């Protein structure tokens, strides 16, 4: 029966040809588990979209009812706690897998010619995902969300020239309040998803245009002989990993359901505000006593909060143009390898210190 429907559609739009074009992508050196992270990210995004849409059935995005409606979802709606906890753990998973994906691409040198545009589109996606995390965090409107956002927008406001405008734009005023929530909601459910879909489209188009980079080891002949098509082996590896991600996020959601604090209020009583875990390293950079010689004071704050992240981002953008050597073997690119290790280790150490030094 299903085949009959397939044949009917195929007769009209050449479905077989379309499927073939999508699935029969030659991969030199064959399918690898190293390549799964991109597809895993797509899967996580779809899950976030599904759970996010479900949450919108009961969430009220206005300051008077945001907190109550979030509690309503967790405490009253059947399995609401599970949908919400899945959405929140999924967002952490997205950031974690994104770092893995970026690292894999970087270490395999897959940003080099002719794949510079793939890398740039990917950086756009990186910023969009960060935006998702930042805007989504405010929506429960409890003390933790509110104060983390207050601090976050303060930092944005420190940017030179455009900082005040940007801060006011995000806040919808001079002080964070009801307008902030509404703006963050629109950005989170409309603007960023649209941007993400557009950017994913570009990212995939550029990627298909250039073809997968493949392994950095092996001669062209060896890789040619081990060539496999995307379907079925890479698709299969992708879906195994998607299944794994799903099971992990479900387990985390069930074992550690989301806990809320009291409703947001301008009085931060006894609360130590801190951002979501993937921003903790930046948070710690600005307040770690060992680094205070660099980042304390107004100039230091500017350095740590604005200058350093901007420079880092700029380096990432310029990476394919700075590193023009065609060498892709990671052990033959000592600068690349060292920089990656240094950056990742610093982030990990700072994050751990942020957790250790919680008051």
């Amino acid at each position, binding site marked *: 029966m299903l085949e009959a429907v397939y044949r009917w559609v195929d007769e009209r739009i050449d479905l077989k040809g379309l499927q073939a074009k999508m699935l029969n992508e030659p991969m030199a050196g064959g399918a690898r588990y190293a390549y799964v992270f991109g597809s895993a990210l797509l899967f996580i995004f779809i899950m976030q979209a599904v759970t996010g849409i479900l949450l919108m059935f009961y969430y009220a995005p206005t300051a008077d009812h945001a907190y109550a409606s979030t509690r309503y979802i967790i405490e009253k709606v*059947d399995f609401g706690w*599970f*949908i919400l906890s899945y959405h929140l753990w999924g967002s952490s998973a997205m950031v974690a897998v994104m770092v893995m994906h970026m690292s894999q691409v970087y270490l395999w040198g897959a940003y080099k010619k002719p794949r510079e545009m793939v890398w740039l589109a990917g950086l756009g996606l990186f910023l969009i995902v960060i935006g998702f995390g930042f805007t989504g965090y405010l929506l429960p409107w409890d003390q933790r969300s509110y104060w983390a956002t207050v601090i976050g927008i303060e930092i944005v406001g420190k940017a030179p020239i455009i900082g005040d405008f940007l801060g006011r734009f995000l806040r919808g005023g001079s002080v964070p309040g009801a307008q902030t929530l509404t703006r963050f909601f629109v950005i989170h459910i409309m603007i960023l998803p649209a941007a993400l879909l557009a950017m994913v489209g570009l990212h995939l188009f550029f990627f298909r245009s250039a073809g997968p980079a493949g392994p950095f080891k092996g001669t062209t002949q060896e890789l040619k002989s081990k060539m496999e098509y995307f379907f079925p082996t890479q698709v299969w590896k992708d879906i195994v990993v998607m299944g794994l991600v799903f099971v992990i996020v479900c387990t985390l959601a069930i074992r550690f359901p989301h806990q809320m604090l009291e409703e947001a209020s301008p009085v931060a009583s006894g609360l130590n505000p801190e951002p979501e875990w993937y921003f903790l390293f930046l948070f710690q950079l600005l307040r770690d006593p060992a680094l205070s010689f660099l980042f304390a004071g107004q100039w230091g704050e500017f350095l740590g909060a604005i200058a350093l992240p901007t420079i880092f981002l700029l380096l990432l953008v310029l990476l394919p143009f700075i590193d023009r050597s065609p060498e892709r073997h990671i052990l033959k690119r000592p600068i690349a390898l060292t920089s990656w290790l240094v950056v990742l280790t610093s982030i990990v150490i700072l994050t751990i210190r942020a957790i250790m030094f919680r008051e």
Partner: protein
Amino acid sequence: MQPKITAKLLCTDREVGEVSRVIVDPLSKTISHLVVKSDGQESLIAVDGLIASCTEREVRLQCASSALVKTGPFRRNDFVTIDEVEIPHLERHLDVDPGEVLVPLPELEKDLSRRQFFSRFTNVIGAMLALPLIYPVIRYLIYPMYKPFTNAWINLGNLSADRQPPGVPQIYKFAKTVTEGVITRHYEKSHWVLKPTPEQLNQIYPNGNLNFKDDKGDLIWVNQKAADVVVFSGKCPHLGCAYRWRHHKRFGMVFVCPCHLSVYSATGKVLDGPAPRPLDKLPVKVLPGGELEIIDMEFEAGVKEQIRIA
């Protein structure tokens, strides 16, 4: 340039045959083999790196015919056309009609049962990923849809506010407060209150007392037939509009619904129009002091039977 089909293949020493197919390597996008027809037989010849010159009518190889590597007879099933493979920007490297250019199908892919297995297994895993969500999501979505009735008594007003003589209905407006989820709303509703005459009572309660049951079937209230007060739900049983008490040229003073012109007598009986049943009566009790209390029930519009929905 690349050969057209039926171009001649020439080695340094002699003509070898006619090109019938062009085989392309999908990764490097260069011609790897040619299928050459000679003496009615098609054979596969590796030409990677050997092409000296190439025009539409002839391909010249750098080597002698004796040095040619004939990789055996041409087996069409070992190859697929470029329509069945994703090779981006191939047209930049080659310019042929699609049927002429082939791409090798890797050994592993030739195993149909292997392809079928991975295809099926992938679909199965995909379905198993979607499956656990079905039950929680359905329950999540239908949570507010079938809530049990709250049979709360609310104050409608005082009987002393009724300025009409017995037998003539009076409208009573009251404030209703409703909490749905986390939102509490206040709005105004109205019902019709009638002090019935004995003849009217017979028409309003033709079957004696009126019992009101909850969703479990337990009796929650009985409107006595010998009642001082009858309350009609302000919503027309046809489609829920608010009806009025008006003079009708044929029926005199009656209830008239402005939406579809249903006409009811003072006792709620349908006189004219699309109304499927008489006016719905609500549970009412009169407290000492004249306060009227009702359970504000809602009934399904447009059906003959009275089915409570709220």
